C-alpha cells in the first residue's frame, strides 16, 4: 500500500480506557522506518505501554489506525503476529517452569523447532550469562534474571519487528549493557526495534529516533542529536522534557 520506508504507521491514535474520560493516548501520529531503533520516552503514565499494547494487537484503539508492514489487525492479525516479537514491561513467564522449559514452549509457539530452537536457546542463555541457570525454575530467579529471560522469550525467533516495553528497568548496569549491545546487533541484522523507556540518557545513545510523550501527547519527535541541538537551553533529552513540561521526568 505504502511506497515509503515506513514499517509502522500510527494515524491519529486515541485510546480511552473503559470508564475513563481522560485519554491514555491522545491523537498520536507517528511513522517508524524499517531498521530503526525507535524510542518512546516519557514518565510513568505517559501512555507508552498503551501505545505498545495497541501496536502488538492486544486491544484496538478507540479511534485511529495502525499499519504494520502495511497491514492492519482487523484484517491480518495472524500475519502481523508472525513478524513481531514482544518483550512486555511486566515479566510474562511461567514461574513453575524452568528457564529452558519456558523458552522451549514460547519458541514452539513461534513456530521454531527441534535442534534449531535448542541451539538458539543455548546461544541466547549464554549471551545473557544464564546458561548455568537453564534448568532452574523461574520463580527462584532474581528480578534481573527474570527480566533477561523475559527478553529472550520475545526475541528468540528473530522477528522483523521487536517491541520492548522498558526492558532495562531493574537491571544492573552490566546486564543493561549486555542487553543493549545484543539489541544493537539484532538491529544490524535488519530488525526494527520499538523501545520504551523513562531513562533518557540511555535512549539518547541507543535510539535512532525518539518521541517524547507526556499525558498521551507527543511533546517532540526526531533524532536525539537534532532535538538536543534544536535549542540553546537543551543539554540533553531530559532537559527537553523539563523545559517543555516544567516537571522533572524521574519520579524514582
Amino acid at each position, binding site marked *: 500500500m505504502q511506497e515509503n520506508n515506513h514499517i509502522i504507521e500510527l494515524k491519529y491514535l486515541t485510546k480511552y480506557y*473503559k470508564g475513563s474520560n481522560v485519554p491514555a493516548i491522545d491523537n498520536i501520529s507517528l511513522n517508524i522506518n524499517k531498521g530503526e531503533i525507535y524510542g518512546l520516552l516519557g514518565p510513568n503514565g505517559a501512555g507508552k505501554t498503551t501505545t505498545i499494547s495497541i501496536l502488538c494487537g*492486544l486491544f484496538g484503539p478507540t479511534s485511529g489506525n495502525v499499519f504494520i508492514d502495511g497491514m492492519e489487525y482487523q484484517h491480518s492479525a495472524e500475519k502481523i503476529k508472525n513478524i513481531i516479537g*514482544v518483550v*512486555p514491561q511486566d515479566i*510474562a513467564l*511461567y514461574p513453575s517452569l524452568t528457564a529452558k522449559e519456558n523458552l522451549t*514452549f514460547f519458541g*514452539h509457539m513461534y513456530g521454531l523447532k527441534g535442534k534449531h530452537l535448542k541451539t538458539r536457546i543455548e546461544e541466547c542463555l549464554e549471551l545473557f550469562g544464564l546458561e548455568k541457570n537453564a534448568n532452574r525454575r523461574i520463580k527462584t530467579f532474581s528480578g534481573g534474571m527474570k527480566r533477561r529471560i523475559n527478553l529472550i522469550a520475545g526475541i528468540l525467533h528473530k522477528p522483523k519487528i521487536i517491541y520492548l516495553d522498558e526492558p532495562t528497568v531493574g537491571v544492573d548496569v552490566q546486564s543493561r549493557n549486555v542487553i543493549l549491545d545484543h539489541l544493537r546487533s539484532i538491529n544490524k541484522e535488519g530488525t526494527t526495534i520499538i523501545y520504551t523507556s523513562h531513562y533518557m540518557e540511555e535512549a539518547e545513545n541507543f535510539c535512532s529516533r525518539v518521541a517524547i510523550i507526556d499525558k498521551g501527547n507527543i511533546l517532540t519527535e526526531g533524532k536525539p542529536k537534532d532535538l538536543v541541538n534544536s535549542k540553546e537551553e537543551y543539554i540533553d533529552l531530559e532537559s527537553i522534557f523539563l523545559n517543555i513540561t516544567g516537571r522533572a521526568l524521574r519520579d524514582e
Partner: protein
Amino acid sequence: MQRLLSSIYKELLVLIRDKAGLAILFIMPLVLILIMTVIQDATFRTVKEVNISMILVNNDKDSLGEAISEGLYASEFFQIVEEIDEKEITEEMAKELVAKGDYKLGIIIPERATDAIRGNVNALINKSFKSFNIAGVKKRTKKSTIDVTIFIDPATSQSFKNMVMSSLKEFTSQLEIEMFFKNFSEALTQLMPDQKPIKFESFETIKYKEVYASTTNDEILPNSVQHNVPAWTMFAMFFIVLPLAGNIIKERDDGSAFRLKTMPGSFITVMFSKIFVFLSVSFLQFILMLLVGVYIMPTLGLPQLEIGPHKIALGVMAIASGLAATGYGVAIGTIATTHEQAATFGAVSIIIFAALGGIWVPVYVMPHAVKIISQFSPLHWGLNGFYDIFLRGGDLWVIAAEAGKLLIFFALMLFIAIVYNNYNKTK
C-alpha cells in the same frame, strides 16, 4: 501440531508442579467418596438393624390383611408383635401400648376391610357394565371407606410416618387393582360367553404387570455404592473448575496470557490444550473412582459397584461430564478477575449444583419445586446418566439425552468464554 503438543506438555508440567491443585484433583475425591459411602452405608444399616418394634392387629383375616402383614414381615424393618401372652392384641390395647412408648407403631386393619374393597371394585365394574345388565354382579352404589388405623409414637420422625403411610396405601391400591382385574375379567366372560378364556388371561397378566411395575419404582433405587460413586465422581470432576480457573487466572496474572495473545494462533491452541489436559484429568479421576467402587469398597464391607455391560456408554458419560466441567472452568477462569473470586464462586456454585443435582440427597425425595430446579443442574444430568448405566443397564441410546445436555452445556460455556474474551479486548 508442534504448537499443540508443546502446549499440552506445558500444561502438564504446570499441573504436575501445582501440588495443591493435584490434591484437589485426586486426593479430595478419594477421601470424599470413601467417607461419604461409609457414612451413608452405616446409617442405612442402623435403620435395618434397629428393628423397629410394632404391633399388628389384623381383624380382617382376608386378602388385604394378609398382603399388609406379608409386606411388613418381608421388609425386615420391623419386629412385629401380634399377640401378647398368647392373646391377640385388641385395638384398645394397641393404642395404649404405643402411647406408653413400648412400641413405635401400631397398625389396625379393621374387620371386613377386604370385603369393603371388593364391594368398591364391584361397584365400579357394575357402573361400567350398567347398560349390559349382567346377572351375578351385585348392585351396590355406596362406596365404603376402609379405615386402617395407625398409631404412631409421637416421637418418631415425619419421614418415617410418611414412609409407613405410603407403603400401606400401596398395599391397599395394589389389592384393589388385583381384584379389579379379577372381577372385571369375570364380568367380561359373562358378557361374551363365546370368547375363549385364554384371551382374557393374557390380557389380564399384561395389564396387571404394567401397573405393578409402575407402583414399585423403588425397586431400582440405588444402594449406597451405586449412588455415591457416580455422585462424588461428578462432584470431583466439577471441582476441576478450581484448578482450571486458577490456571487461567494465574496465566493472566503472570503475564504469559498477554504474551500468548501477541503470538500467532496461540489463544485457541492454549485453550484447546487446557481443555484436553483437564479432560484427561477428569477421565483419570473417573477411572480412579470406579476402581475404588469395584475393588476398595468391598474390602470395607460395602457392596461392590456393578459397572454393567455398556462400557462405551460409560466412557461417553465420563467424557461428556468431564467436558461440561472443563467448559465451566474455562468460563469461570475467563470471567473472574481474581483467584478469590473464581474459588469462591466456583466452589459455591458447584455445591449448589451438587445439592440440587442430588449428590447428597437424591432428587426423588426432594419437594416438587426443587425437583424442577434440579433439571438445570449439570451434576444432575451426569448422575442420571450414571444411574441409567449402573442401575438400569442403559446403553448409548439411553444416556444420549443426558450426555447431550452436558455437551450443550460445554459448548455454551466455551461460547460465553469466547464472547467475553472478545468483549474484553474492546475495553
